[in-house]
């Protein structure tokens, strides 16, 4: 049994999962996983089979996922709301089995497919695997094969449970991200049941078929924390859940944090339990972070940084402004033409359906534009979203940050529109708090931006969003080229 599961099953105090009114304690975890393993045995699912499961946010589904990973299967978490992409994903993953729900009636045997060598090689090692799909902004999804033990080894051998948080200034050591040593998880820690402190309590906010959601699950279980399932993704419901379950950690996105502040849902509920907001998936506008800090003064904010291909990295906030962050642990980084490149020795094994994205020396081009200051990094946007206006480069994130400060604008998505005159022009779709005439809005935007942006960065075309800009990954939907 892997070190991860040894550690997990050594935990005996506290709640592991909360689903509606039902709680699963760490003391019950092993028996629940054993029961799922018995189900797999009964259904003659081979211990090295590739098994897809629809990730409904239920205790049973998570027990099934853990059972698959403990056995050495290759698990393929699928989105619960992604029926239209399911067939494609099953094909790309060469799945042998599909669980549409976590019981015998939900199991389907799929047509056997010849496996790519990446899968065969992993099967020969007897190690468990995870196939995670990139939620790319266009084109075919990419299936990334990870070795499970390598994905979770990065959590290190810190003591079980979190340190007290919230009473230290930003810039002190972050929660859950202690520098990782080379030492394996030792018997002393695993066996030391008295060492368990109360863990973090967090909602399963990020989806569990996504690398961010999976990292939340595994990291939390590794630390003896409590995951609250069935998290509704509206500001009011999330704030209510924080109050009800005394949530201490909220993993989220800049877009959703913005929605909480605009809706003022934070003022309707007691959020005093909240100690840490970990944000990722998209750049954080400094003005939004400042506003969030003022509204939630007892909460620390941490930039998380993860990629389907590399997993979620260890980070810690900068000294004074946590849009600056430090990459710690085992990750090497370099910046080439403003773009962040990363290197680790525990990345995915490879894509099943796309060429190897690593260069000959093992570096991965993240495509993220970053600034560097005193060893700290700040994300500025995506290199593939840069708009070229008559030869001038415009970073949409910079423009969006300004637009979001305009009164009555709750969110902004900047995109490039083709132009016969300048090649491209900057256009923006704005989400408004109250309805407004588009022409008047266009005038206001021009006036507001005049002294804040160079003329070529000012949006020349304004659209008003008919519905929210937040996509199903709780961040803004990607740029629109028209």
């Amino acid at each position, binding site marked *: 049994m892997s070190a991860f599961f040894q550690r997990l099953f050594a935990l005996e105090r506290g709640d592991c999962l909360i689903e509606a009114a039902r709680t699963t304690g760490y003391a019950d975890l092993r028996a629940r996983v054993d029961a799922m393993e018995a189900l797999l045995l009964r259904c003659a699912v081979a211990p090295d089979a590739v098994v897809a499961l629809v990730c409904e946010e239920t205790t049973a589904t998570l027990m099934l996922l853990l059972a698959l990973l403990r056995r050495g299967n290759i698990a393929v978490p699928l989105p619960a709301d992604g029926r239209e992409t399911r067939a494609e994903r099953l094909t790309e993953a060469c799945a042998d089995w599909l669980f549409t729900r976590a019981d015998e009636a939900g199991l389907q045997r799929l047509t056997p497919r010849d496996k790519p060598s990446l899968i065969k090689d992993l099967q020969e090692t007897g190690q468990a695997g995870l196939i995670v799909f990139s939620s790319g902004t266009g084109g075919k999804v990419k299936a990334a094969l990870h070795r499970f033990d390598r994905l979770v080894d990065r959590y290190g051998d810190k003591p079980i449970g979190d340190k007290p948080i919230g009473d230290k200034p930003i810039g002190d050591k972050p929660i859950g991200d202690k520098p990782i040593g080379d030492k394996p998880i030792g018997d002393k820690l695993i066996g030391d049941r008295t060492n368990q402190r109360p863990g973090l309590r967090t909602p399963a906010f990020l989806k569990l078929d996504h690398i961010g959601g999976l990292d939340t699950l595994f990291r939390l279980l590794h630390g003896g924390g409590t995951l609250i399932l069935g998290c509704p993704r509206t500001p009011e419901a999330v704030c209510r859940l924080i109050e009800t379950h005394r949530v201490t950690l909220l993993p989220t996105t800049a877009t959703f944090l913005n929605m909480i502040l605009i809706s003022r849902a934070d003022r309707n509920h007691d959020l005093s339990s909240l100690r840490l907001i970990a944000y990722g998936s998209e750049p954080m506008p400094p003005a939004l972070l400042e506003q969030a800090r003022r509204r939630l003064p007892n909460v620390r904010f941490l930039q998380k940084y993860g990629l389907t291909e590399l997993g979620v990295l260890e980070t810690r906030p900068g000294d004074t402004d946590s849009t600056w962050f430090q990459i710690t642990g085992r990750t090497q980084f370099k910046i080439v033409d403003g773009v962040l490149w990363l290197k680790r020795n525990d990345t995915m094994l490879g894509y099943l359906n796309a060429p190897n994205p690593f260069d000959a020396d093992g570096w991965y081009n993240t495509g993220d534009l970053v600034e560097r200051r005193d060893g700290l990094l700040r994300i500025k946007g995506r290199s593939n979203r840069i708009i070229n206006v008559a030869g001038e480069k415009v970073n949409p994130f910079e423009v969006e940050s300004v637009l979001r400060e305009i009164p009555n604008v709750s969110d902004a998505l900047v995109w490039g529109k083709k132009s*016969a005159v300048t090649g491209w022009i900057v256009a923006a779709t704005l989400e408004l708090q109250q309805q407004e005439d588009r022409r008047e809005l266009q005038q206001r935007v021009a006036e507001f931006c005049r002294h804040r942006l160079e*003329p*070529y960065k000012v949006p020349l075309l304004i659209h008003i969003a008919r519905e929210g800009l937040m996509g199903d990954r709780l961040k803004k939907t990607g740029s629109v080229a028209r």
Partner: protein
Amino acid sequence: MSLSVASKTRERIDSVLQSIQQQRGLPPVPLEEGHQVMADLGFASLDVAQLIALLEIELGVDPFAAGVSLQEVHTVGELYRVYQDACNKAAGQAP
């Protein structure tokens, strides 16, 4: 295109030209067919790019994406003509 429709097209073009003038803080120059868009109205290349983008929203056509050369359009009068032609084509009428 009937006269009234052509007249409405001109009004909408004028309205967009004036909104860009206002937005850019340019001195309000009365619009005349002989006025050169760049030399007389003071439009820079970004203003012309915005004009075309906004007219696409207002009129539902972009003649320059459909093959008309920018070099054909210097004056306000030429702008009217190019857009009226494009609107006619879009409506399935002969120019």
